[in-house]
């Protein structure tokens, strides 16, 4: 299923280097929240390109529809009504996988090759290797992956890795009518974002900025936010996300430590036997009991 088999930066549950002779440019998607109108063309394009139709849900009373990400809805618009300086602000954020440079899902995944990080930065799930344990959900700092109830595989945005592999922009970026979703090299996107931030600041959003959180090594989906100092305003976008220390412990040094400790106990037992010999019942006691029997 891997379309770009020569440019793999990291592969889940694999301790040797992945095929990586081909180097590709680091890409990024930039979501400019300030120019998003909440039309959901990106959601429709995502469904159409990936050819997945979620079940038709019901209106929950707000614009969020579907209400949350699912195994079949890999991106959703989240609408927040916030009062700033006595004025209502309608903050609309396209939520989905952030494609972290240091992906918690990949770190936690126990199935070899179920999660792949390409040299271009895209983090992709290869469902044919997925065992459905949900460790990716446990590892993700953004609460993105979802397990399908139908096939028990984990799904999320692929950043249209199939389109990007052949030089196309992701479907959502292609469909966005206002240019709020931009796609290109990560450098280009940062430059573009810098211009947007200057513009926003000139319009009175003093704290406007780029969301490219360093705690996860930067992301390959970035946001331009009017309130970059308070990302949580945007329906709980995490301020300074990082892989949880518990996950880092669990899938970090605990792995070799525990493996070595278990091996040490097993080998220690063997060597104890070899060096001290078995603990036999003494011949003396056996003879003594035999004598008693003979009486």
């Amino acid at each position, binding site marked *: 299923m891997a379309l770009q088999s020569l440019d793999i930066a990291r592969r889940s549950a*694999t301790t040797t280097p992945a095929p990586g002779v081909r180097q590709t440019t680091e890409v990024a998607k930039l979501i400019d929240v300030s120019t998003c109108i909440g039309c959901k063309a990106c959601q429709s394009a995502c469904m159409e390109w990936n050819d997945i139709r979620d079940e038709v849900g019901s209106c929950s009373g707000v614009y969020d529809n579907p209400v949350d990400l699912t195994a079949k809805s890999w991106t959703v618009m989240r609408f927040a009504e916030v009062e700033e300086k006595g004025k209502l602000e309608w903050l609309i954020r396209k939520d989905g996988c952030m494609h972290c440079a240091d992906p918690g899902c990949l770190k936690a995944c*126990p199935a070899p090759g179920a999660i792949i990080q390409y040299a271009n930065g895209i983090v992709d799930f290869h469902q044919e290797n997925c*065992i459905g*344990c949900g460790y990716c959900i446990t590892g993700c700092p953004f609460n993105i992956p979802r397990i399908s109830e139908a096939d028990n595989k984990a799904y999320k945005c692929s950043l249209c890795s199939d389109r990007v592999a052949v030089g196309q922009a992701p479907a959502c970026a292609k469909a966005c009518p206002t240019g709020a979703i931009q796609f290109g090299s990560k450098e280009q996107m940062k430059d573009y974002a810098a211009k947007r931030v200057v513009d926003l600041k000139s319009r009175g959003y003093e704290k406007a900025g780029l969301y490219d959180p360093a705690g996860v090594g930067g992301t390959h989906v970035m946001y331009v936010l009017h309130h970059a100092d308070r990302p949580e305003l945007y329906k709980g976008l995490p301020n300074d996300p990082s892989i949880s220390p518990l996950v880092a412990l*669990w899938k970090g040094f605990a792995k070799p430590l*525990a493996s070595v*400790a278990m091996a040490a106990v097993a080998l220690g*037992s063997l060597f104890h036997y070899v060096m001290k010999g*078995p603990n036999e019942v003494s011949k003396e006691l056996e003879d003594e*009991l035999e004598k008693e029997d003979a009486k």
Partner: protein
Amino acid sequence: MMRNPKDLTRYDAQERANHWLVGICFILLALSGLAFFHPAFYPLTQLFGGGVWARILHPYLGVLMALAFLVMFFRFKSLNAMTPADKEWLSRVGEMMDGNDHNMPEQGKYNGGQKMMFWAMALSMLLLFVSGIFLWRAYFSLPVDVVRLGAVVHSAIAAIMIAMIFVHVYAALWVRGTVRAMVYGTVTRAWAKQHHRAWYRQVTGKS
């Protein structure tokens, strides 16, 4: 059939069956669990029909082991109450390990080490069961921080438990004449007199 009618019965058939049910579950759980813990062990999933089957079966085996252990716990609980003699025995465990156990304090059915193992396993079982529930996504959906804590606790306790079981099995192999107690239920009188003299007196009425 008994090898010698004078052999002493250490475990009856129900106790043995109960122990082996726990033991088999434990081996299968350790093999499948290690596969999810470190990539080096992932090939073990093949024993279960692949990664997906290992993931499906592991929690059910865990519930079965927890239930079987619970029965075993109540069976052997009172026999594992710690006494001052056990503490004395534990303080001199080095001599035992050195292979010179003739001067060790007299022990009942279980020595201090076995009792410590019993209580450590009971605590581990409880922690594994509870943290395992946190991780069982097919039926439970808990807040992610609870799941993360569960993952750390589950793997740490599992690693400790696997090491403890190595010690448990090794002790049975090292002390010759022990394994038969869990296979067909009996031990020789000499074995009992040497390793568990107080128990020997109790069951034979001799000194």
